[in-house]
């Protein structure tokens, strides 16, 4: 069976949607994913080669059941239905937010960037009140938005823009190693003056990475910082020797006491 991927198929969906809902697939990256194909009882969604191929839709046979919309892990499949006429279209989107969206209520239809397209009436809600299910919301919008709608928002306001401020002058110092509280400036001083060859030596002396967290959080940044500050030497920096215990353990435990 033939089918078209991405925006190629959208024209067809547009055309066929005068007869009822059709799936609009907005998934064109090669993602290893195929539940839409599995979910489609009509066989209208086909991945041409392997599971990374973008799904191709055969709009002719699509019956608009919406199973693919509900299961798509990327929430990237929608339904477009122009059968109601009078310049309106119904768009069905997957929905997993907890805003109170009521059947018959008004909501915003938004595009892929979250821009407001239109305010529309919710004409269908399926899967509501069933945790774990992806809800399908159908919103009625002017036909010209039918292919653009990617979301429905009950929260009808926009985020305020962040304020622009004057650049801060000096970089404040901070603890590079959270546990031992080794300052960033101190660490860099040690790196640049200490002429350490290896990470273990740097750690031994700076104590960055020797704290209670066992270096979980600073060892990898310590490595990057070390390489960044000593770029002239192209070398393996030797990794830390790992010794038990890799998790802190009470001395009494280690000594064999129970409890």
């Amino acid at each position: 069976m033939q089918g078209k991927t991405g925006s190629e198929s959208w024209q067809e969906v547009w055309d066929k949607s005068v007869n009822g809902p059709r799936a609009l697939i907005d998934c064109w990256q090669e993602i290893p994913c195929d539940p839409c194909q599995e979910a489609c009882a009509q066989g209208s969604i086909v991945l041409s080669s392997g599971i990374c191929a973008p799904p191709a839709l055969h709009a002719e046979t699509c019956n608009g059941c919406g199973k693919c919309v509900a299961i798509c892990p990327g929430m990237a499949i929608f339904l477009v239905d122009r059968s109601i006429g009078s310049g309106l279209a119904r768009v069905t989107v997957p929905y997993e937010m907890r805003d109170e969206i009521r059947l018959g209520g008004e909501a915003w239809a938004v595009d892929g960037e979250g821009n407001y397209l239109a305010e529309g009436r919710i004409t269908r809600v399926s899967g509501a009140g069933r945790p774990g299910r992806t809800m399908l919301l159908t919103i009625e919008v002017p036909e010209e938005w039918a292919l653009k709608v990617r979301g429905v928002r009950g929260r009808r306001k926009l985020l305020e823009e962040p304020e622009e401020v004057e650049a801060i002058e000096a970089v404040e110092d901070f603890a590079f190693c959270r546990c031992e509280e080794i300052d960033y400036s101190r660490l860099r001083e040690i790196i640049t003056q200490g002429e350490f060859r290896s990470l273990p030596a740097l750690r031994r002396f700076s104590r960055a990475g020797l704290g209670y967290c066992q270096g979980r959080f600073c060892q990898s940044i310590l490595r990057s910082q070390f390489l960044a500050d000593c770029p002239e030497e192209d070398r393996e920096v030797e990794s830390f020797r790992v010794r038990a215990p890799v998790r802190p353990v009470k001395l009494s435990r280690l000594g064999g006491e129970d409890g």
Partner: protein
Amino acid sequence: MDDVLSSEVVIIGGGVIGAAAAYFLCKEGAEVMIVEAEDLTAGASGACDGFLSLQTKQIGSHLDLTLESMALLPGIIEDLDIDPEYNPCGGLMLATNQDQLKELKARAKKVKAAGLEIEILGTQELKEMLPEVSKEIKGAAYCPSDAQINPIAFTLGMAQKAQGMGAKIIKGCKVENIVVTNNRVREVHTTAGSIHSRRVICAAGTGSNEIGKMIIVDIPVMPQKGQILVTEARERMLDRIVSGAEYLGTKANLDELLPKDEDAIRLGLGFTAEQTVSGNILIGSTREFAGFDKETTPEAMNAIAKNAINYLPWIKNLDVIRSFAGLRPYSPDGLPIMGPVKGVKGFYMATGHSGDGICLAAITGKLMSELVLDGETSIDISPFSLYRFK
């Protein structure tokens, strides 16, 4: 590298002994080069606790040497730009039974006669000094001169100071051969090229045996593993360095003070504990012969932990966050090996300090400087001669 390097003195090894030798040599204006196979403090000096334990030294030349070393320490520390966290905190050696206490008493007498202040504490006096010590402890030997230091900072401090006086430090540089012609050291072949030098100090710690082979001398130093547990950092709770009498037993091989348990004897188990400036408590330790293996083992970790709790019960609530093993440069009688080598002029040994390298570094460095530059030393070092063996 094709460049031909040269130096008046080459020191093999960037541990505490090498750094101290470089420090003293530079003070005398010598031209010094340290060649280190890995990084400074990569060996025993970076994998030990900070014990400066005087009371565990062998009575005689060993203790005399130690006292000389400790006398030098304040001056060196004053001179360093890196704080080595020296703390003259005093040290307690705990006896778990009356026999041990008796032995400690007998020993204290001799130690005092040798010039080291030491005091035997009964349970009551001990409690005042170490309130949370186990009720099982029968008494202790207290040595006010015992102290602690950060061995890594101490080593780096001396190396850095030497560098400031012109010493060159080549890291990641393995010595491959030592060229001797006409009974004199001429050249050191390394992975970083050849270094012309007529004076070489072997401060290679556990690597000394390998170095000795290059000049066909058997330096009887072998690695003796010591395992240590590190706890989480806490506020100051341990004001002194603390050890068990069995530690002295295994260290100095004193039958009367050896542990009774067979496994403990096999592991060379002896209790030590110190709290570092960073707040961590280092808990030791073992004496094992396992070649160059630095793995910590479940058996030893378990034994060290259990043992420590017997001495200081409160310690059991601390989290252990690390363990490590260091390889002490063990010599057959526990004394350092210092001095020249017969038939190879210009080759000097400063190795085999066993577990006492940090403590003896200062005096070793000074003596090496004297020996290399003047051909004689201010203290008789014949007790430490290689030729005492056999």
